[in-house]
Every structure is written in C-alpha cells, then in structure tokens.
C-alpha cells in the first residue's frame, strides 16, 4: 500500500495530480484563501508545466512588461507618472499576473502554452496603448501639446482601428479612449470600474442603462481619461446607450468630434452606399484636422496584415470545429479575438502570438494531442460576456468539463477586406464596420441573433452558455423567444445572468451557482472537481 502511495506521489509530482475526483484529483478549490481569490500556494502542474509556467509565463511576462515599457514609451518616467495619476492604471498594473492565474488555472501542456501566448499578446498591446496614452498626455507634460499629441487620434472603443490605417505611415497612432481604462481593467481588476459607474450615477443617470456605457461615461465625469489627442471619432456601435454616451463625453472632452453612424439594417443592399459615404466623410474630417492626406499604401499594407490575421483565425476555427485538438481555452480565445480585431494592426504582437499558437495547434493535430481531455460538453457562448468573470470558462472546464469552443463576439468582423482597388476596399470596409462587436448579431433584424443554431452546427457544439446581460435592452428583448426555441429544439442551454463590468449586480459566485444548478438538476452530472463548486472570491481582483 505504502509502495503504491509512494508511486502515486511520485507520479503526481512528475505529472501533476489528475483532474477528476475519481482519480484522486487535484482539488483546485482548496488552494484559495477564503474570499480573496488568492492562492495559498501555486498550483503544482507537474515538473514540466510548473516550470514552464514559472519561467515561460510568469517570469517571461513580468520581464517583458518592463521591456515593453522601454520599447513603447518615449520616457519611462511618464509611465510612472501616469501610474500615479490614473486610478485605472495604478490599480491594475501589478495584478496582471493574477489575471493570468485565473485564466490559465488547471491548464496543462499545449493548452497552457497556447492560451498563454494569447494573453501575452494582449498584455503587450495594452502596454503599447498605455504608452501611447502617456507619451501624448498633456496632463503629464505640463499642459503642452507635444508631437505625440498631435499625432494621435482618439476614438471611442467600439470604433474599429482599421479606420485609421491610412495615417499610420505618417506616424499617427489610434487610441480607443476607453479600451484600457475600462475594458481591459475590468478583466484584470474587477473593482476598479465600479468607481466610474458610481460617478456617472451620482449625476442622476439611472442604474439601468448598459453598465459598460455608464463606466465609459464615468471615466469622463471623474476626468480620468488622459488628454492625448486633438480630435475624437465616435460611432453608433453598439446600442442606444453607446450613442448617448458620446453625447455626455462630448460635453466633458470638448474637442472637435466626428460622429460616424453606421446603418442598422445592414442586410439591406441599399444601405451600403450610405455607409461608404459616411466612412469617406470621416476620412475627410481627419484630413482637414491633420492636414495629412489619406494614404492608400499605408491602408493597404495594414489591411493585408489584418487579412492574414483573419485567415489565421479561420485556420484555428477549422481545427476547433472539426477536431478535439484545439489548444486554446475559452477565455484566451475570446479576449484575443475581440481585442485584436478592435485595436487593429498596431505593432506586431498579434501576428507573433498567432504564429506561435498555430505552431502549437498543428503539433496537437499531428500528434493527436487532446489539450482538453476531460471535455464533457462542447459549449458555444452566446451574447456578451461578463467582463469581471471572463475566466468563467476556465472554471467551467475545471469543475464540469464544459469546454467553451467559440463565442458570439469572436464571430464578428468575420471577413477579409479586399485590397485590389480603393472601391472594393471601401465597400468591404462598410460591411466590416457594420459587422462590429455587439452589432453583427444584435441589430439589423432578429434573425441574426438566431444564427446561433448554424454556429452550433458549424462548431460541433452540444450546449449553449447563454449570457444574460441584465441591462442589455437588445438581448433582453429576445429572451422569451430564445426560451421558446431552446425548448422546441431540445437544446441544452443555461442562462448566465451578469452585468458586464459590474460585479455587484451578479457576483461570480452567483454565476457559478447558476451553472452548478443546471448541471446537477437538469444534466444530472457530477462535478469533475467538487472543490470548485462553491467558494467565495468576492474580494478578489
């Protein structure tokens, strides 16, 4: 008996403990300090993966976070000043690695390596943006509008970066105003954003509009957006609240502003010409403001890189849909996709990560390695995800074997943009912008949101995780029809209530409880790791 125990201990040490309870599992939930979400000690993933995590992920990323600052910042002192000036910066820079921990918990081998590369690219892109912010911020330069300021475009975060490619050869940068202060910080530290939501509500805004838009407005109310650009481009993605947010932002920012409205009924062939004209109007505005003409070469060069990235994604989706060898977990897949498409081609971090991930993926295909061997259900996640719990997919796999293969937001922007002529490019740009995140499925006719059934088939999924963003009027407006269709089609689907960035409305524990209830009472399944069923992480980042 003792010999057997010793053999098991040696095996556990070398390979890490097995996943399931039946095999004497690893009980990841026992690692948590109550309430804090902090770990009592690091997870032992076996010799190879533990050291891989330590050196290739933990150490590598900390070192590169410093190197990236040196690479992208004009003056590292500005970075320090910005960290002290802006709440969203000071509260999120150090917990980044904990964000890695949450997303990569329990991952092994190829899944660990591939998912981490996606995270790495996002960190690098974030530092790139932060440095662009601080390089140009008049508040950090004694009110002076320096050269970086004059070469920066501001846009609201749902305006796609593709729009600004024509000026990048001339040294211009595009910064989505709220992407770092709001979107990225939500993932890293879920508490930071609450302050901004409260700020705008203190002006009298009711609590029911989309909390993402509330937070975006709150940043301006608290004067917590750097003053880094002389102009702003806004657009009407993705909803009524988003349009209204710009009205409020305009009053606070008080800069020349161009509104780029995109048609709602995008299936209608008659709207395309209108949309193309609007895009050209936007470019004209930029030309007038900067005095720098539109550059076709600059545009084309970056669009071709972007198209390559899109083809890479299609390759990944092909493997994900047809095999069990796709090595990227749900959260890494989703965040990489939405971040890279929205920010566009600035720097080479997306392409580098994509190449590395593809290499790992093809290794899995060739050697028939299943990176998620405990998969019980292939899940498609639909609607918009809780930003404060984007890593729920990691938990769901570890606890229940729910493997999130694809999600709705990843399927936006699902096209290449032709570069053979200006006319074709413009036509595709119109479609591309109308297919933006939270827009492609949510507007332009109810049938788009019910494309879920086609995507379930395409990605070979047998279960739906239905995000239930409580303050999204568009998605709330199809709630009953989804219920009807799930029943009629006999589809396994669970609802996940949440409030996008606001963890006070529905806690992470409540989200887990809803899934647990569904898995036990409807699916009659036992958890793979019972220690993860119930724990309190309310105070964690």
């Amino acid at each position, binding site marked *: 008996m003792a010999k057997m125990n010793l053999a098991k201990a040696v095996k556990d040490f070398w390979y890490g403990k097995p996943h399931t309870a039946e095999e004497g599992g690893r009980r990841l939930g026992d690692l948590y300090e109550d309430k804090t979400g902090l770990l009592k000690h690091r997870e032992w993933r076996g010799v190879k993966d533990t050291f891989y995590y330590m050196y290739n992920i933990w150490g590598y990323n900390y070192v590169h976070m410093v190197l990236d600052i040196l690479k992208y910042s004009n003056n590292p002192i500005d970075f320090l000043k910005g960290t002290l000036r802006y709440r969203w910066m000071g509260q999120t820079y150090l917990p980044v690695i904990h964000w890695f921990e949450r997303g990569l918990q329990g991952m092994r081998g190829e899944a660990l390596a591939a998912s981490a590369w996606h995270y790495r690219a996002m960190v690098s892109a974030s530092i790139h943006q932060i440095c662009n912010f601080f390089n140009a911020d008049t508040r950090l330069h004694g009110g002076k509008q320096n050269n970086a300021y004059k070469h920066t475009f501001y846009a609201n975060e749902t305006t796609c970066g593709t729009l600004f490619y024509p000026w990048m050869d001339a040294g211009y940068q595009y910064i989505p105003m709220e992407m770092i202060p709001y979107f990225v910080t939500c993932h890293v530290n879920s508490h930071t954003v609450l302050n901004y939501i409260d700020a705008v509500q203190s002006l009298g805004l009711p609590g029911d509009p989309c909390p993402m838009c509330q937070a975006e407005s709150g940043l301006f109310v608290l004067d917590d957006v750097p003053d880094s650009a002389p102009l702003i481009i806004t657009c009407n993605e993705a909803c009524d609240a988003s349009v209204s947010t710009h009205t409020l932002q305009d009053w606070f920012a008080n800069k020349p502003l161009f509104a780029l409205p995109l*048609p709602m009924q995008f299936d209608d062939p008659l709207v395309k010409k209108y949309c193309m004209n609007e895009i050209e109007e936007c470019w004209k505005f930029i030309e007038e403001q900067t005095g720098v003409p539109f550059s076709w070469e600059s545009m084309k060069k970056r669009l071709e890189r972007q198209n390559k990235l899109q083809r890479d994604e299609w390759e990944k989706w092909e493997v994900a849909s047809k095999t069990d060898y796709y090595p990227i977990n749900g959260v890494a897949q989703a965040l990489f996709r939405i971040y890279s498409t929205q920010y566009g081609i600035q720097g080479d971090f997306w392409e580098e990560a994509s190449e590395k991930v593809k290499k790992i993926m093809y290794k899995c295909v060739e050697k028939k390695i299943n990176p998620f061997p405990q998969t019980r259900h292939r899940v498609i996640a639909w609607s918009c995800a809780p930003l404060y719990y984007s890593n729920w997919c990691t938990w769901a796999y570890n606890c229940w074997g729910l493997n999130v293969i694809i999600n709705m937001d990843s399927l936006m922007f699902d096209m290449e943009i032709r570069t053979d002529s200006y006319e074709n490019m413009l036509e595709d740009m119109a479609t591309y912008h109308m297919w933006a995140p939270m827009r492609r499925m949510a507007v332009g006719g109810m049938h788009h949101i019910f494309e879920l059934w086609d995507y379930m088939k395409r990605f070979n999924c047998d279960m739906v995780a239905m995000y239930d963003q409580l303050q999204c009027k568009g998605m709330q407006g199809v709630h009953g029809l989804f219920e009807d269709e799930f029943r009629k089609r006999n589809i396994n689907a669970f609802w996940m209530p949440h409030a996008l960035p606001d963890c006070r409305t529905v806690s992470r524990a409540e989200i887990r409880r809803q899934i647990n209830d569904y898995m036990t009472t409807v699916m009659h399944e036992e958890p793979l790791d019972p220690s993860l069923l119930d724990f309190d992480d309310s105070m964690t980042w």
Partner: protein
Amino acid sequence: MKDLKHLIFFEKLLQEANNDLVKQGKADGNRAIGYTCYFMPEVLLDLPGCFSVRLRAPGCTSPDIATYYLSGRVCHYARSLLERALEGGYNFLDAQMGTETCTATCRFQEHIQQKHLDSVDDMRIIDNDDFFCTFTDIPFKNTENSYQHFETQLRAHVLEPLHEHFGIDISDETLLKTIEDHNEVCRLINEIGDYRKLDNPTITGYEFHVIQLVSLACPKYLILPYLRETAEEMKTREPDQKKNFRCKVVLAGSENDDPDFTKLVESCGALVVCDRFCYGAVESRIPIEVKEGQSPLRAIAEHYLKTSNCPRFMPQDEMRARKKRLADLAKEYHADGIIIASNKFCEYWSYERVIDTFILKRDYGIPVCSIEKEYINSASGQLRTRFQAFVESIEIKQIQEGN
C-alpha cells in the same frame, strides 16, 4: 373655462388604439398602417387608401406575457405595445412601418413581424392575413448623404410596399396633395396650441395633449372636421378670471402618450405650455415645405430629419443645438421652468436628461425638474411630490427675484 365641445369625444377616442374613427376608416375601405416613431413620416402613411395610426397601449398596466418575451428590464412602453398586440388589440393593422430607432420598440416590431425563417418561429401575433411589417433604416445625422439615404429608404420600404400590397397611389401629385392635407392638420394644431403662449392661456396642457394625440391616433380625414370646429371654438374661449396655475413649464423628454401624466403635472400647479417629447406637437406639427424643384419625397425626408430633436442624433453641433432649442422653446412659450421626463429603461433619454438637467440650468439659467417615469403612472404620489416641490422652488425663485 368652459369645457371644449369635443373633449369627451376625444378622450374616448384615446381609450383604445382601434377607436371609433379607426373603425370607420377601415369601414371606408382604407388600410390602417401602424408606426411608433417620429422618424416614420406619418404623412406617407396617410396617402389616399390608407391612414396612419401611431401605436399606443392605453390602460396597459401589467404587461405579463410581454414581460416573458422582452423581460422586465425593457421599457414599459415597448412591453405594453407587445402585450396589447398579444391580446389582439392591433389585429386591425394592415401593416406596421418599422424603424430601428430605439432598441425596445424595434424588438416589439420584430416580434410582430412575420419572419418566414427557419431560425425562429413566426408568432403570428397580428391575426390579419394581409399584415406585413417592413423596416426603414433611419440616419443619425442631418447631412446630404443622410437625406439621400432616407429618401431611398422611404421609397423602398414604405412607398413601394404600400403600392405593391395595397395598390396605393404613390405618385408625386398624390404625395403633394397628402402633404397639403397634413399641413392643414399642422396648421390647426398649431393654431390651437398657440393659445398656450398667452399670459393667461385659454387651453390647458392636458386638453392640448388630448387634441394632439387624437390627431396622431385617428385617420386624418375623419378627425379634421373636429379639429376645425375646436379651432373655431378656441377663438372665443375665455380664460378663468383668476389664473389657476402657479407657473408655466415646458414638458420635454421621451415617449409620452398619456394625457393623465400632463394632468398630474398641472394638478400640482404647473401649466404645461409646451410639449417637446415623442408624440408631442413641437416637431410633428411643423408644416412640410416643398421647395421649388424639390420632389415631395425628398422634401419629406429632409423635413423629418431636420425637425427632429431626438437624442439619437450624433454630430457635435446637433448634440449641442438640442439644448439651445429647448431653451428657446421655454422663452417662446414664456415658461418658468422645464420638466424633463424619461421613461424608465429608455437609454437615449436617460443620458439626455442628465445632460439637459445640467446644461439648461448652468448655461441658460432655466430651472429644471428631472424625473424618471413609467409608461402609465398618473397615480404616482412620488411624482406629485416632486412636481409640487419644483413649483415651490420656482415660486421662491420668483419671490427672490422680486417678481
């Protein structure tokens, strides 16, 4: 003041969407065309052979089945419309001219639309074999590109379907004649409404709200004689000797088709002298002008974009001009303050209300009462308290200023 001769009749017409005049319009062989938003030009739906009905759901306080479909977190107005549709209250409609101008009403209209798709079942909510629903894409700007786009959309998604389905004459000549008829309604409503500008107005906000609503909810050719008679009656109407209000206000904000809400405001001492809200008369009763050489459809497209004060308009100059327009209205109607009311869950007006509350007070010195309301809420004691406090604050301000 002496009661208006047709007021009770008008009030009765507002008790249900399928009212007596709508029934008569249908019996005359006309098609009833529903719509919800100002951006759907009612004048196009009033072409000979059809008539416009701006949808309302009076008395719908508990939209239970609609709440299953739209959830309890979507605006009460959209839920009430769906509930009324599910009850069969809109089966008289022959078509719905949809707009994706706000998410909630868009979802309502998508529910009643027959989709003919594999992805989601048709609900056949409107039990009428002729019924169809089309959507028109509405621009967010006042630019040449927007006017062209809107004109194209109106032709493709309003005029042509009306012609194809019901054989409606959509020629320029007929459009011009319909614009004339529409403008007569506008002229009469404005004539009646202008009495609110008097020092001691001879019409209350409630009465005007009722009159404006019947002009939206009934066939124009049937309501016109009553409007003409009312306009005549107004010429000799005497005000009460003693003013029975304590201050005058502009009522602005989101969707409001409940005259009892106006009555509630007025019962607190604030006379509503101007109605700048969805379903109000400020924009919708500006006559349409067709310039020389301009096609009538183009004139209509321009008119509805130029006259709208919807917070949906995105350009910087539009966003800022809206505040000035509101301040100008207060001046024109000699109002002492502005009440900004947004429907609960209305995202556009939630934000607009916040900004208006600050800007109008700070930049124009106009007192503002900012409230959030439900679709049907005449019995709200809380609102009564808010309005009373607002009236008192205006009175105190006037005393302090020595007026």
